[in-house]
């Protein structure tokens, strides 16, 4: 059988390198599009051939890499990663299409997109901790250049902050990985970075303190990446300064790396940390805090992009909350929220990017009445805002309802607190729409016209996908539930 995952990563990497050396914009974007479409076909093939009944790894592909250290190259997908691989593969070609007219260093620009793409797919599919870390870093570096070279006025500050903050967090995570590696080595004499083995050995480490320290070290790496309040302060700068394509990659895909790790590593380890109940309380509280605090911050913003950045923090809070509730369906809801948030957030940042390009500003107070001049954008934007605020019919509702409904079983008071934020969420979305899109047209904006057909197409695809998975969540939900039940089942065995 074809090693599909490896081929996807390889094609993306080769595409990135080739694109880097192209001479013209036309060449660069055609290669980028071709690369991403080919990989999308691979992802779709896996998605439709995926066995939702099985919690096992599928499409596995493995060989020894550095045998002396126990490093292998192992990639595969299960119900946790398949939706995210699909999401990534859908987002990238549409981002390429959306930024079809990038004229500043187009070769490098598209190369950075593809390099990030390769890194992210690697993160989602690696089953070897060493490999995981390599891909993790691989995804950060091109994003740094993306912000640094194509960013807004404060790109220098934002890119350095992004790099240092997430990099320091990854180093802490690396310490945790090494501790697990050595712990296993000392206990069993086997040198391995194999993720399932390390996770299985983790519970056998005797010292409570060591287990807690390892847990916290990994957690820091993941939670900064997600991010959860109060580790979010790199995010508004990075999201706002990055070019639209970069923001979309960060918000839709890279924020899922941290969240994905929550399900891959943190949940299986959680029952065996020294103080499970405390960890659950802290993390659930951080989740709810992210939801509420993010919503209030979003309400305060005048910059549309900053508003959506905080809104993104707020929505990712549902992932943490659902994961910590540890009911099979709340965990499923949390994973579905990752998928759904990825789709909808693209739409949000695309709308705002279009407004910025057309009017030269993102400040709500300087806009007004855009719907009259940009009806297509207004239509897609209203759909996107409605999807983002959790209107039924869109995938966001399924995710948030599932999280809230099933988290209530084990964390009732947290859920009640989170529910109140829903009104605030609706408030900032509608208030922004009212002031930016409706009302009297602000004549100072001059002569503006509607979005291009390519932009309309990319945004419409996301609207349709959010609608499709809102009406029929089962194709993705079923595979998620299978693995969520397995994770929670492990915990039940541990007697928690």
């Amino acid at each position, binding site marked *: 059988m074809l090693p599909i995952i490896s081929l996807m990563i390889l094609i993306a990497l080769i595409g990135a390198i080739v694109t880097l050396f192209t001479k013209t914009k036309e060449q660069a974007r055609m290669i980028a599009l071709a690369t991403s479409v080919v990989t999308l076909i691979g992802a779709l093939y896996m998605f439709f051939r995926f066995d939702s009944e099985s919690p096992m790894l599928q499409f596995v592909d493995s060989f020894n890499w550095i045998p002396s250290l126990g490093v292998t190259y192992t990639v595969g997908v299960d119900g946790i990663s398949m939706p995210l691989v699909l999401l990534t593969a859908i987002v990238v070609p549409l981002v390429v299409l959306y930024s079809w007219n990038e004229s500043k260093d187009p070769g490098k620009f598209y190369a950075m997109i593809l390099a990030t793409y390769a890194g992210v797919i690697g993160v989602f599919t690696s089953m070897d901790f060493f490999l995981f870390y390599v891909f993790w870093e691989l995804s950060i570096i091109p994003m740094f250049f993306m912000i640094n070279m194509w960013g807004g006025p404060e790109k220098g500050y934002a890119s350095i*902050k992004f790099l*240092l*903050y997430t990099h320091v967090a990854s180093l802490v995570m690396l310490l945790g990985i090494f*501790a697990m590696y*050595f*712990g296993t080595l*000392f*206990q069993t004499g086997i040198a391995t970075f194999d993720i399932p083995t390390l996770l299985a050995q983790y519970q056998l*480490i005797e*010292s409570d*303190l*060591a287990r807690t320290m390892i847990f916290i070290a990994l957690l820091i790496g993941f939670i900064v990446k997600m991010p959860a309040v*109060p580790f*979010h*302060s*790199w995010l508004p700068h990075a999201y706002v300064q990055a070019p639209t394509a970069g923001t979309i990659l960060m918000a839709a895909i890279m924020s899922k790396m941290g969240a994905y790790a929550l399900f891959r590593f943190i949940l299986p380890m959680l029952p065996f940390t020294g103080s499970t109940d405390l960890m659950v309380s802290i993390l659930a509280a951080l989740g709810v805090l992210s939801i509420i*605090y993010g919503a*209030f*911050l979003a*309400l*305060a*913003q005048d910059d549309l992009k900053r508003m959506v950045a905080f809104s993104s923090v707020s929505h990712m809070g549902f992932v943490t909350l659902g994961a910590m509730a540890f009911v099979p*369906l709340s965990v*499923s809801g949390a994973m579905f929220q990752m998928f759904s948030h990825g789709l909808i957030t693209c739409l949000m940042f695309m709308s705002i990017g279009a407004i910025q390009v057309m009017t030269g500003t993102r400040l709500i107070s300087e806009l007004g*009445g855009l719907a*009259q001049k940009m009806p297509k954008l207004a239509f897609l934007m*209203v759909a996107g805002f*409605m999807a983002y605020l959790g*209107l*039924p*019919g869109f995938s966001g*509702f399924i995710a948030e*309802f*599932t999280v*809230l*409904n099933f988290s*209530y*079983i084990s964390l*009732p008071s947290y*859920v*009640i607190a989170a*529910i*109140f934020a*829903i*009104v*605030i969420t*609706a*408030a900032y979305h*509608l*208030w922004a729409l*009212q002031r930016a*899109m*409706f*009302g*009297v*047209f602000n004549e100072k904006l001059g002569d503006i016209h509607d979005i291009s057909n390519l932009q309309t197409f990319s945004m419409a695809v996301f609207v349709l996908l959010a609608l499709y998975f809102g009406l*029929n969540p*089962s194709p993705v*939900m*079923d595979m998620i539930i299978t693995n969520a039940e397995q994770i929670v089942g492990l915990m039940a065995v541990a007697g928690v």
Partner: protein
Amino acid sequence: MNIGDIAFLIPLLPALAFVVTLFFGKKMYSGGALLPIGAIGASFIISLLITINLLQNPDQVIHQSVHWFAVFNLGILIDPLAAVMLTMVSFVSLLIHIYAIGYMEHDPSKPRYFAETSLFTAAMLGVVLSDNILQMFIFWELVGLCSYLLIGFWYQKPSAAAAAKKAFLTTRVGDIMFLAGIIILFASMFQAFNGEIPEGVYLLQFSEMFNSIDALSGMTATIFGMEVGHLTLIALLFFGGAVGKSGQFPLHVWLPDAMEGPTTVSALIHAATMVTAGVYLVARTFPMFLAAPDALLVVAYIGGFTALFAATMGLVMNDIKRVLAYSTVSQLGYMVLGLGMGAAVGLEAIGVSVFHLINHAFFKALLFLCAGSVIHAVGTQDMRQMGGLGKAMPVTAVTMLIASLALAGFGIPGTAVGTSGFFSKDAIIETAFVFGEHTHDWIPYIFAILAALLTSIYIFRLFFMTFSGKSRSKTKAHESPSIMTVPLMILAAFSLLFGALTIKPFINFMEQTFENNVISLNIEHLATLGNYNLVQEHGHEPLLILWLPVIVAVAGLVISYLLYYKQVIDISKVVSRQNPVYRLLYNRYYQHRILTELLATRIVYETISLSADFFDRKFIDSIVDGTGKVTMSTGNVLRRIQTGVIQNYVTAVIAGVGLLIVLLKLIVEVL
């Protein structure tokens, strides 16, 4: 073929019409109006046939269900309650769509209008025929979306954009209560099932919910030190949703502002259908209310108070649509009050309340459409600039008079002569009397009677100011085209006759909602769970009680006649800013200042939100930047260590390695 097999088409056809009209309406006749009209007409015919079938076999209800995702299903339940609602919604929507061909004739955005009203109709029909509460909530939110889009239909107007947002957010407050109710209900039932949901059982189906009432009634929670039964909590949270959607106090504030939308939208969404969804929700889940101690009393008080409270504001509004909006709030209050009377009369409360809901849909839609016809003719909504329109617009004036009489409840007690509003509103007032007699709690009855007096005053004030006296308008008014007046005449016929013809069979039909092949409940037992002592048989009320509602209605007419037709006293002395009562009413009890300016702007936005933003920028972000700065300055200091002297480096390396060894030892020991 069984007609029930195509029940799914009822919401589906208008939904498809929405898609086609939205994208291709521009190229079609009259902005694509005919497509929604055809689709809704078909929905109406199917609904009507189903209702006729059900009337013959009320215990053979239509129930279909398919698996959706996880542990949820999608399904259709058409029992007597749903059937009459489906028929009413599709019928009124059909008439209003036809009327809108004329009313919206000159609007360039017609395709968007007809697409959105068609989507609304689909969603509203979906609310009605859902077989589980989650699906109902989904459609419930969709009608909210359509309401938002249609209030803001003329989005260029800042006031319309603001009103749309206000409507969405205010109802959202109710919606999250509804959502919380669903979540708590699910968790409680999950507990009742010991965490094991059998295959093929969907907890949120109405039939499962009602079957679990016994198990739920034992559960209690402590909230703020008070012991509250889960059932009461859930029922009141559901009612919170109804308060938002049906404009009950204190969430009624969005409904008058919603009049910024086209008048046809006001008639369809904010008078006849969507705003009754809250009443429908309570009726749908009535068995839970009946088994929940105290819940029905809260319902009764909120409803009664709203009926009176809204009527007081209706007295002073000068905008013709706003008067009608307050009237709608007030009449919804009656329906909610009627439901609350279930505390004494049991299931009869649903019959009485839904009967008023249906009749109100006819005469209130008619009132709005007449107002639309007037606005269409004179180009203003301010009644001070109308007057004397009766001669120019005879059809509108006569139909409006019929609707006003129906709203005020004119009729002759003890006979079959009367407007539809007479039969249904008086039925509610009578049950309030039975309740008072039974429990010695007369407050709901007093609310109801006083509101009836005010209703009559404000509606005839509206009528006289608009149609009688001298014209105060600059434009020359003319009667609307027949595409608008024919729907008026049809609705007028229903406003006149529907009540008298159907009251007895209607209420009996409604009472059969919870006794059929899907749901079979012991109402007596449920009422015992809820500590409600039901009246077994209530006989005839004293003659005075039967006549009292009519007497106050006539009194209201006389007062309005004297003040606004004969003008016996100079009304401008009362209607002035000097008069504190007038000022209070005209400013709508300062709700805008309290809710919008104080709560939303000052507290939520300026106090909480902006200070959170300040905290985030100045505190959290500063810590991160500070850490960075400290690191950099440390680096600057440490740079001086780079002396270039080999010995120093060797010392450092040895010290470093030593430290590493110590650390490794420690790690190994700990592990």
